[in-house]
């Protein structure tokens, strides 16, 4: 059984702070991590490796420093790592990103392709299903749990708003995993040491055979028209009083606003 996991290096958005006076992002010192949904997907792959002796390949698209997340994946136990990097991929929106990744994935043989549901820096949840479409594969998103019958059939629990669905699909297929689905294992010490001597394959435009017009900024149907900070709302009234007085203030304000 062959599994490929797509992962992304992201800034830890929970560590991003806003400058309260200017309303701008403070990006300095924000650590880079494996995107949480992807890391749960990686754990799913490694459990299938433990149980079915699956071969696990991990691939990421990004700048050269994205190699760090591949080393981390090696330390967790994957067998092969590919860094997809090329200036031609720069400025890609989700569709152009999915074209580049799909190009690389066409070169790989797999029964199961795992991605995270969404990345915390963009929160779009689009690249997984877009890859599935380009590769003409069935998809199951919002994966909470997966069972494999050891032959070719996957039974998948898909989390939805008010419950879940049980779905069945044969490989090869694409699943997008929720971060809460599988608790990622820790890197083991030997793995960490060895990860630095393992080969990270570098693939670029030359390896993927995708029409250049579909890649990078040129291949992106969406463009950022403008970006701005949320801005700082005019401060409301602030009272530092005892509980009794506070309750009185709240009640009179709510009456004034016709809320109560």
């Amino acid at each position, binding site marked *: 059984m062959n599994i490929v996991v797509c992962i992304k290096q992201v800034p830890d*958005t*929970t560590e*991003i702070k*806003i400058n*309260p006076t200017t309303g701008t*992002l403070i990006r300095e010192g924000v650590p880079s991590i494996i995107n949480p949904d992807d890391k749960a997907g990686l754990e799913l792959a490694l459990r299938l490796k433990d149980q079915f002796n699956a071969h696990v390949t991990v691939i990421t698209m990004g700048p050269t420093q994205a190699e760090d997340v591949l080393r981390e994946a090696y330390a967790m136990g994957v067998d092969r790592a590919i860094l997809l990097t090329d200036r031609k991929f720069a400025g890609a*929106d*989700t*569709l152009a990103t999915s074209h580049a990744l799909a190009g690389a994935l066409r070169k790989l043989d797999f029964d199961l392709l795992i991605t995270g549901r969404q990345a915390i*820096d963009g*929160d*779009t*949840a*689009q*690249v997984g*299903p*877009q890859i*599935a*479409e*380009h590769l003409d594969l*069935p998809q*199951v*998103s*919002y994966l909470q749990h997966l069972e494999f019958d050891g032959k070719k059939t996957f039974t998948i629990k898909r989390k*939805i*708003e*008010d*419950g*879940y*669905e*049980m*779905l069945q*699909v044969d490989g090869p*297929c694409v699943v997008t995993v929720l971060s809460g689905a599988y608790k990622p294992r820790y890197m083991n010490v030997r793995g960490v040491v060895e990860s630095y001597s393992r080969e990270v394959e570098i693939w670029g435009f030359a390896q993927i055979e995708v029409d250049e017009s579909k890649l990078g900024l040129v291949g992106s149907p*969406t*463009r*950022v*028209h*403008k*970006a*701005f*900070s*949320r801005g700082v*709302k005019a*401060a*409301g*009234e*602030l*009272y*530092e*009083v005892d*509980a009794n007085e*506070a*309750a009185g*203030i*709240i*009640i009179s*304000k*709510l009456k004034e606003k016709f*809320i109560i």
Partner: protein
Amino acid sequence: MEISAYKGVFVFVEQRKGNVQNVSLELIGKARDLAEALNEKVYAILLGANVSDKANQLIAHGADVVLCVDAPELADYLTEPYSQAVCHIVNEYKPSILMLGATTIGRDLGPRLSARLQTGLTADCTKLEISEEKELLMTRPAFGGNLMATIVCKEHRPQMSTVRPGVMRSLVADPSRKGEIINVTVPFNKDKFRVKLLSSVKEKSEMVDISEAKILISCGRGMGNAECLSIVNGLAETLNAQVSASRAVVDAGLVSHDRQVGQTGKTVRPDLYLAVGISGAIQHLAGMEESDYIVAINKDKHAPIFQVADLGIVGDAKLVLKQLTERMKK
């Protein structure tokens, strides 16, 4: 691509077990604004089995045309049959704009469609408007809500976007509104139906939709214990309010996930949002700052929640709520 050949603001209508979801009505409400700015029509795409009786509801809420595909293949949501049906309609009717709810259905279907149609998709838009060039300006949060970006899709059609439930407002239903209902037949390619639905399970017996509440009392870490929650529940009963919570309280298992407000929970805009013991992480603010009136009670006067609050009380939330409950009961 001949951009000018694409006209009309289309909404993918989400129904579950035959019930049209509120998010779709909210999108039809927004579609009216956009269609009027473009001088085009609002189309509702209604897919399902035995759902054609829902068409009038969509017209009453603002649709000019309902395109209905009533087929047994569409009884339950599955990616492929729904993708085929929507793609067929897009190819036949050439919409300039296509909107979907940012739900587990819309966020599964939307990207599949965008890849099949080779067009752009902007997720989780919080603002949609028409530019002077008659293009759709799609504004969405990025970096966990830290930054806003306005996205355009200039050279591809349809311009696609998803919008989370509770972000837009539906119009008051007008049963006298007139519209057209068109039944569409889709030539399905069933060889591509490779995912089978075994079962669908509802997990909560008592579903609460906090995004529908007029008054929300929302608890944060500072109120995250059983005693404080019982005070909150008491006040909620008195005010006829719903209880919601920040991520910390949900993660601690004190409040169920369907009551979580924020980036990974729900977006709410009640008349009154009473935040108690919530410091106001960016991810939380993103889900509630559009509320009409925000009251925050927190010990720390530097807590970010006070930056969005209309009325802030620096103090012990537990004591203030006790006083508040007592006085309200009188």
